């Protein structure tokens, strides 16, 4: 099923939580809604589910307008952040509830519940109560309960946030497998960028109730359309600059280390002679290069070993800059001076606000 959100708005006590949001989720997509806490992503999910009414805008399932349809008639599956498993029912009863509500035949209920139990790898636990299950098992019951009714759209509200790191990683794999095997459209809310980058087909980034950017994970990471998007997904360094002129090879900017050409599709809100903010991710700063190429000198302030990579905090142009190297590939230590070569082709630039 294709989900279309059109100009959705919602306010609480005069404060806008969602501000004129519009986007589309294609059939069979695993679509992520990401953003920091309080950005409105869970509110949007509740509006899609029908548990909350929007103040304005429409919601379409394929071409059907469901804005006024109550939650119980939308036929969706929803996995709650706290799982919301009914504590007085066994695993089997929790999962079969939706099918019983739909008046399905006993034999069919048995078949479907057994199949989904297999799908989420919970065979043998049917008679247990939620309190007798581990966090990961509870999460899978919640998922099975949402999936067993074979909904055209499944909504997941931070379903892995209550699990420990190891289990979260394992469940990510499970979710990807289940999504592939069932091919159902899924909308997944999270504030965990790694979860989103690793699982999403496409994602929407929300900020203060507004849509910052929609696109594939790679696209959002490589060409974030705003400085907020650049800082939310991964780490980045912001440096001041000035737009000079647009050329055939891209925008020419004056940067603290001289002129740099940034591809046009990496530049947002550019204006001739306007002030700019340049986003330069740590992995796009190289410690090796030719002296003919643009580079700058920096002083090493800190060196942090992070396992496979080592993070270096340096000082240049009166501000801190973060760079990284493969662990063991350098001999730098705090107090040393070094040269850094920025990769202009990987940089993004934005119009400076205010």
């Amino acid at each position, binding site marked *: 099923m294709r989900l279309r959100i059109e100009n959705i708005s919602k306010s609480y006590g005069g404060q806008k939580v969602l501000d004129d949001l519009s986007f589309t989720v294609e059939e069979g997509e695993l679509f992520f809604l990401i953003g920091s806490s309080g950005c409105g992503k869970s509110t949007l999910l509740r509006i899609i589910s029908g548990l909350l009414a929007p103040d304005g805008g429409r919601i379409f399932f394929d071409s059907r307008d469901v804005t006024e349809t109550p939650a*119980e008639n939308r036929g969706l599956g929803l996995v709650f952040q706290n799982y919301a498993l009914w504590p*007085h029912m066994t695993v089997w009863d929790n999962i079969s509830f939706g099918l019983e509500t739909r008046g399905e035949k006993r034999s069919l209920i048995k078949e479907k519940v057994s199949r989904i139990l297999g799908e989420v790898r919970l065979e043998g636990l049917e008679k247990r109560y939620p309190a007798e299950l581990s966090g990961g098992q509870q999460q899978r019951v919640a998922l099975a309960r949402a999936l067993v009714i074979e909904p055209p759209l499944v909504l997941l509200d931070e379903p892995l946030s209550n699990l420990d790191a190891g289990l979260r990683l394992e469940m990510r794999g499970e979710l990807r497998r289940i999504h592939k095997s069932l091919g159902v459209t899924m909308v997944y809310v999270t504030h965990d960028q790694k979860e989103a980058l690793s699982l999403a087909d496409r994602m929407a980034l929300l900020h203060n109730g507004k849509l910052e950017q929609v696109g594939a994970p790679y696209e959002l990471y490589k060409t974030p359309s705003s400085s907020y998007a650049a800082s939310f997904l991964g780490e980045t360094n912001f440096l001041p600059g000035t737009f000079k002129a647009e050329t055939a090879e891209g925008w020419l900017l004056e940067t603290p280390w001289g002129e740099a050409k940034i591809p046009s599709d990496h530049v947002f809100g550019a204006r001739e002679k306007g002030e700019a903010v340049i986003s330069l991710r740590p992995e796009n700063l190289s410690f090796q290069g030719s002296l003919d190429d643009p580079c700058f000198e920096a002083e090493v302030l800190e060196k942090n070993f992070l396992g496979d990579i080592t993070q270096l905090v340096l000082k240049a142009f009166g501000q801190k800059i973060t760079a990284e190297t493969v662990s063991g590939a350098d001999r730098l230590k705090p107090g040393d001076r070094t040269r850094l070569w920025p990769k202009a082709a990987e940089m993004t630039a934005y119009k400076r606000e205010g």
Partner: protein
Amino acid sequence: MFRSFCQRFGTAVFFLCVTLFFFFFLALPLGEIALSSFWENGHFTWAYVLAVFQNHGIRESFANSLLIGLFVTVITTFLSLPLAYFFVWLDFPLKRLFQGLILLPMVMPPFVGALGMRYLFARCGSFNLLLSHLGLPAVDFLGSGGMAGVVLLEALHLYPIMYLNVTASLASLDESLIEAAKMTGAGAFTIWRRIILPLFLPGYFAGAIIVFIWAFTDLGTPLVFEFRNCLAVNVFDRVTDMHSNAVGYVLVLLMLAASCVFFLLSKSLSKGVKVVSTSKGVQSSSLKKVSPAFLCGMYAFLLVTSLLALLPHVSVILVAFSDKWFMTVLPESYTLRHFAGAFTHKLAVSGIRNSLFLSSFATLLDIFLGVTIGYLLARKKGLWREALDVMVMLPLAIPGIVLAFGYVSLFAGKNLPLLTLDPLKDPTALLIICYSIRRLPYIVRSVYAGFQHIGESMEEAGRSLGAGFSRVLRKITLPLLSSHILAGAILTFAFCMFEVGATILLAAREWDYPIAKTIYALNMRLGDGPCIASAMGVIGMALLGSCLVLTSALLGRKMGELFRGSSS
């Protein structure tokens, strides 16, 4: 190592002391009752039990008591369910005002309300006089020799307890559980039947049993209404000849057995399900707005309920201020004389003084026991923990009248060294012990809830910074726990002040009477007696009201969890 040994030793000594206390003042009196019911001149006998069951009058009074208990439970349920729904899930204007109004009945014990209600609903009471002025025939409002009046009074007094309980149950229901059902396509009825009801019933049964036992064993209201055909009054009538006729013991045993059976039944029904979700309860953002038509119906229900519930209060206040009230709808003139009487009448003054003294001591004893037991239950592990929990909660199933009967039987006429426990000589010690045992579950529950709320990590954080046990207790635990201790203490004090059954049985001499028995005694006197009794009732109402407002302010919604027969 040494510290841990000391802590374990201290726990063991405390547990032993509590066990001994409960053995002497709970198990022994109950054992005495059971023994005296089946034992005569050194021989086992069924004679008294048979005599009781063959006596038509007693069978009828037992049935009447059961009916009172059941009717009151059913009526309070039907009153509280819509109220709880309105106040937990809906948002409407004047919500706070009505919330206060519907809790008001708690500020007056039902037997005090009965004093005034007789003036309104008796054959020649205000309502029948009003009917005759309108040319309509008189109605027997109090019906069946007063049973209807007893049921009405108790239901109106006890529904707030049921309401608080039902509200606590509904409010703690995680909204996402209902939303999850909605998402599967379930309709309102299915959600109510399969999700809300099974999760709500344990809490409901835990509260319903308190209401049932209270109504089933209440002595004051039937006495004031002169409805003598119930078990509690039968027990009361037989205290004086308990040593010559063992039927009284069997009646008490019957009352105890019935209370225990219903208590155990409710406990098995209220076995809570373990909620694993991180329950947020009902959030203020999810309160529903309602249609104008629904709002009108709801206000009508709230108004009628509040007015009905306030009738006993109004009637007592009218009697307390009435100068002359005979064969008129309202008093002919008003006076403050009876209030002056309440502060100068010898009996009234000693009643107030005695109650203040007894309740204060019982509360202090309960604070000490309650905080220690609450701490041990919440923070310590061991086989004794379950035993302690059962022992402390047991008094909820044991009516005051049963305990008092056991005390009279065990200690009357017996001289003990150090402590006077003979109620005929001085009932002070026994009254304090009886009050504190009866109210201990409330303070333990309040303190236990406080410990749960604080969480062990707060104390551990203190210890990790080098603070010792006493410093953590002084600086972290007690300040955080103070509202719960205070709430439990206020509630204990308030209920001790108006403990009726045990008081009426244990206080034999006029100068030993606490308030409850003073009101009862004054009410029996001719002349100004009932009016001074009502004035004392109004004073008590003000006192109890202030106590409940304080408790409610300290505990908020959690107040309902104190009135439960079991934790769930």
